[in-house]
């Protein structure tokens, strides 16, 4: 079968319509998990089936797509999803954050601030922030409906009681517009302040069949205690390639003698800085030349 045998961006129009309705409802009620009839996608659950369906429903032939996985444009997940939409939709693709109109992401928010008109699509493994505290979905839905969120703080209390500080470092729960408590997908808590963004943010959970959304400039507050305020921490280091002191860093083990380097997890941000001449502590000679 040729690629042309598929509808634009793989999904049929009826399905896209259903997903768009869920997205619109999600945007109308920020942070609320809208159920939708998730389809089988040609990739395994956990690889971003929710994000792909949301992206497919958002894409138009004029869009420019960027796909990142943990901030990187060149990992398997990002490459295969980008190629998927190139083949089934024929859309233009890019790795540059500011050029993209739709960005599908797994576990990161790009360092470059997003602008109005951009759409950021998250891949979400577990949309329910209360899942591991209250296993019954009937009960968690009721808790959302009645705004009973004391339990979320029990988790943070346990963190402090056992570790001395709030040790939740990713998927850090947030409260949206003073109403719904939301799981921001497993982004590092460093990214939480950037959830208040000019872009539209859509969250798709394929296996769990939920879509939720943050309209532009929505108020997003990370939960904390008065005496243990929220701290968006990162590795205390500069990027060893581009020298950035403000971006989120990956730690890379270099050898078995304790050698390590810290590099920006956002590859586009790092490459752009290096192209502008910024250098880090471990930049190679030819880079510096």
């Amino acid at each position, binding site marked *: 079968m040729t690629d042309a045998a598929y509808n634009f961006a793989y999904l049929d129009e009826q399905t896209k319509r259903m997903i768009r309705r869920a997205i619109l409802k999600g945007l109308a009620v920020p942070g609320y998990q809208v159920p939708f009839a998730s389809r089988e996608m040609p990739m395994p659950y956990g690889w971003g089936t929710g994000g792909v369906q949301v992206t497919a429903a958002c894409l138009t032939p004029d869009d420019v797509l960027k796909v990142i996985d943990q901030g990187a444009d060149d990992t398997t997940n990002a490459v295969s999803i980008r190629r998927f939409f190139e083949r089934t939709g024929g859309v233009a693709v890019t790795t540059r954050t500011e050029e993209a109109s739709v960005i599908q992401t797994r576990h990161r928010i790009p360092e470059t601030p997003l602008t109005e008109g951009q759409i950021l699509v998250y891949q979400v493994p577990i949309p329910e922030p209360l899942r591991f505290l209250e296993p019954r979905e009937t009960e968690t839905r009721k808790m959302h409906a*009645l705004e009973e969120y004391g339990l979320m*703080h029990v988790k943070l*209390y346990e963190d402090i009681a056992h570790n001395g500080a709030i040790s939740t470092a990713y998927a850090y729960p947030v409260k949206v517009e003073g109403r719904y408590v939301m799981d921001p997908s497993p982004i590092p808590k460093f990214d939480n302040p950037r959830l208040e963004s000019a872009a539209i943010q859509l969250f798709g959970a394929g296996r769990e069949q939920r879509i939720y959304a943050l309209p532009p400039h929505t108020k997003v507050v990370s939960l904390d205690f008065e005496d243990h305020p929220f701290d968006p921490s990162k590795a205390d280091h500069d990027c060893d390639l581009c020298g950035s002191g403000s971006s989120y860093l990956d730690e890379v083990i270099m050898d078995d003698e304790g050698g390590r380097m810290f590099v920006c997890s956002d590859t586009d941000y790092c490459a752009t800085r290096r192209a502008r001449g910024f250098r880090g502590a471990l930049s190679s000679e030819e880079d510096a030349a």
Partner: protein
Amino acid sequence: MTPLLKVEGVTKRYGARLGCGDVSFDLWPGEVMGIVGESGSGKSTLLSCLAGHLAPDAGRVIFDTRAEGPRDVLALSEPERRMLARTDWAFVHQNPRDGLRMGVSAGGNVGERLMAVGARHYGDIRETAIDWLGRVEIAADRVDDRPRAFSGGMQQRLQIARNLVTGPRLVFMDEPTGGLDVSVQARLLDLLRGLVRQMGLSAVIVTHDLAVVRLLADRLMVMKGGHVVESGLTDQVLDDPQHGYTQLLVSSVLQV
């Protein structure tokens, strides 16, 4: 004075079978009401109906709320009822596993109700939790242990602390001493009696153990086959039982 809880003709049927039929009583502030009867007599059904866990088929349960005076609990909206259940009410389950979060530390278990009503200061929550663990005779150094690491008696005491931390006015207890050995039972009862008197709590206690009601309850209702067959002051009912079933119940207690 208005009764704290006014129960009028509560009836619950399971299909053709009767759970409990036409039960009425008043519970006054500071009073402890015992409900005794054999297994299947409808006492747990009645308690579930009163606490809002089951919807009775007929009858009214009127609670004297702090803000708005007497309200029919069954006619409250769900958010209101749940709010009541985590502020003015408490429910102590027979099995502490039903009432505790087993994966959460003792401190977190006690603190949950505080956080549910809006406490957001870690230091204060922890201090209150440790204070309450002390009141139920759990050492302060166990505050970060999970309930799994506790003995049955400690789990039950922890459940009581977790329930009383928000200063409820009405406590429902379903066989609070069931499954505990007699010496642990005695300590728990002693503790409960102290707390009930100290805090001026009203309580409805369901049990099949006459010793429990003798120690804790001011008044007593004896149930059989879903109906209340006898009620009155505890000592009066136990020392001078009138109904045949009550006489049987009292005489079946083993004397050591």
